[in-house]
């Protein structure tokens, strides 16, 4: 493997990590509150707002049903407005965040739904406000599930970021397409795929570890 290839790979890896990292953080910041709202505004839940819930649900579904490659192109004006350009790593994070946030929201919503309704009832009986129920009961209890959901999000974002590379977003996907596909350098393509495999494995293992550590539900001990 040439020195040049290694340099290219490292640079592309850094771009991918930056893209995925920034979009994960932003998607989480938007998606977690959105997911909480999707649950608690349901009719009969602690902040029942049926109309808001229906509208938010429809927007989330619409975003999720748009194929990423189309979404990326469709929001170019928005991207230009936000980061000043539609090409490059920074520009790629905009569609990545917009695609990932509703995904995170749905995963968070379903993790929160798994929390036993008896716990919410107990908190209400103690005189907890809706915000206290969210912060002290729902989110901590759903944390293992949320961690697993974020892991899936990061892995999906790595895949999406490669797609973003195809339209000039930079990163590993971009490298693979330009050198591996357009210049017929098969070994670059192989190297890119190998790095991606290792990356996804690492993320998944880390996520599994976090979810396990957060889960206090099945940690048995001898002192029963």
């Amino acid at each position: 493997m040439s020195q040049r290839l290694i340099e290219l790979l490292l640079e592309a890896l850094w771009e991918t990590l930056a893209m995925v990292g920034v979009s994960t953080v932003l998607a989480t910041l938007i998606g977690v509150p959105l997911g909480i709202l999707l649950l608690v505004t349901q009719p009969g839940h602690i902040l029942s707002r049926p109309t808001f819930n229906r509208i938010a649900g429809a927007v989330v579904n619409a975003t999720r049903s748009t194929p990423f490659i189309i979404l990326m192109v469709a929001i170019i004006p928005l991207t230009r407005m936000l980061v000043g350009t539609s090409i490059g790593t920074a520009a790629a994070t905009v569609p990545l965040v917009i695609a990932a946030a509703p995904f995170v929201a749905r995963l968070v919503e379903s993790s929160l739904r798994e929390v036993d309704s008896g716990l919410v009832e107990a908190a209400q009986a103690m005189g907890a406000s809706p915000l206290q129920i969210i912060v002290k009961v729902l989110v901590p209890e759903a944390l293992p599930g949320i961690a697993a959901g974020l892991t899936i999000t990061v892995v999906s974002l790595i895949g999406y970021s490669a797609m973003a590379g195809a339209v000039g977003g930079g990163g590993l996907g971009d490298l693979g397409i330009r050198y591996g596909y357009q210049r017929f350098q098969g070994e670059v393509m192989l190297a890119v795929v190998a790095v991606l495999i290792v990356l996804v494995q690492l993320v998944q293992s880390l996520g599994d570890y976090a979810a396990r550590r957060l889960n206090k539900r099945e940690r048995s001990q001898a002192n029963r």
Partner: protein
Amino acid sequence: MIVIDDLEKEFGGPSGPSPVLRGISLSIEKGEVFGIIGRSGAGKSTLVRCINLLERPTRGRISVAGRELSGLSGAALRAARHDIGMVFQHFNLLSSRTVQGNVALPLELVGLSRAERLRRVDEMLELVGLTDKRDSYPAQLSGGQKQRVGIARALASRPSVLLCDEATSALDPETTKSILALLAEINRTLKLTIVLITHEMQVVREIADRVAVLDQGRVVEQGRVFDVLTQPTHAITRALVREVLNLELPERVSARLRHSPQTSPGLVMRITFTGPSANEPIMSDIVRRFGVSFNILHGHIDYIQNAPYGTLTVEAGGSEAGLQAALDFLRIKSLKVEILGRVAAPDRAVA
């Protein structure tokens, strides 16, 4: 302490609203243990949830400690709930928090300082006997220990009322006994008013002072536990009582009663002992004084709220005059005597 006035609750369904509670009125005194018993579907869980407004009554009024709850909402309702502890059948502990964290939760809600919280948690854990499990997670505890944590959590904010919704129904009999003993102790030492929802008469018998029997959303019977248990009037109550006090004659004896000619001399009667008379040697007095002999067919003595309660079914033999005198004597001693019938000469030696 708790006054429930003409409470009604309907649940909306596809075929219109269906009534769950129909005109319930109860008055629960300060410091007493009040049992609410009924079969599943009688509405008892809905009733207890109406007391802290987890369920909003359709009609009627509820007041706790002189404060009308049914009109409250928002912050005022939450403040009122700090004064009402609740214990659940399935414990409802947060799996993500340790025992200490679970007990501290209601204290965090009212904004107590960290030092004060820790002090209160230790005090509560000592009360329920779980000091050594302070840093365990609920998953590491047994059912009985989990319920102790549930009780400690419910008491942490120093409520004046404790609602127990089938608090022992998920526990084995031995653990049930220890949890009931704990509740009785808390009732005594903290002068706490306890409302206990259950489907088991055993639980009521063990610790309640008064009981209300619920059937199809109505209170069909209520009174002191001793009275309700010993003189049940409603069919549902009788069925529930039968589970803990077996007052029925064994099939063998009752079959003999049914088929016997009514003219034979042996008189079968059921004598009920309650209160102080249960401790007197009345039977041997009768034998000595009136020359009446007894053949004991069936007997049972039980304790309800530490008061002895027993029934004895005997076949009495002797002269007509002697039997009559014995009956009069029993009535003077104000024992309840029921003549169940006459039987043919007993097929074994008279005692």
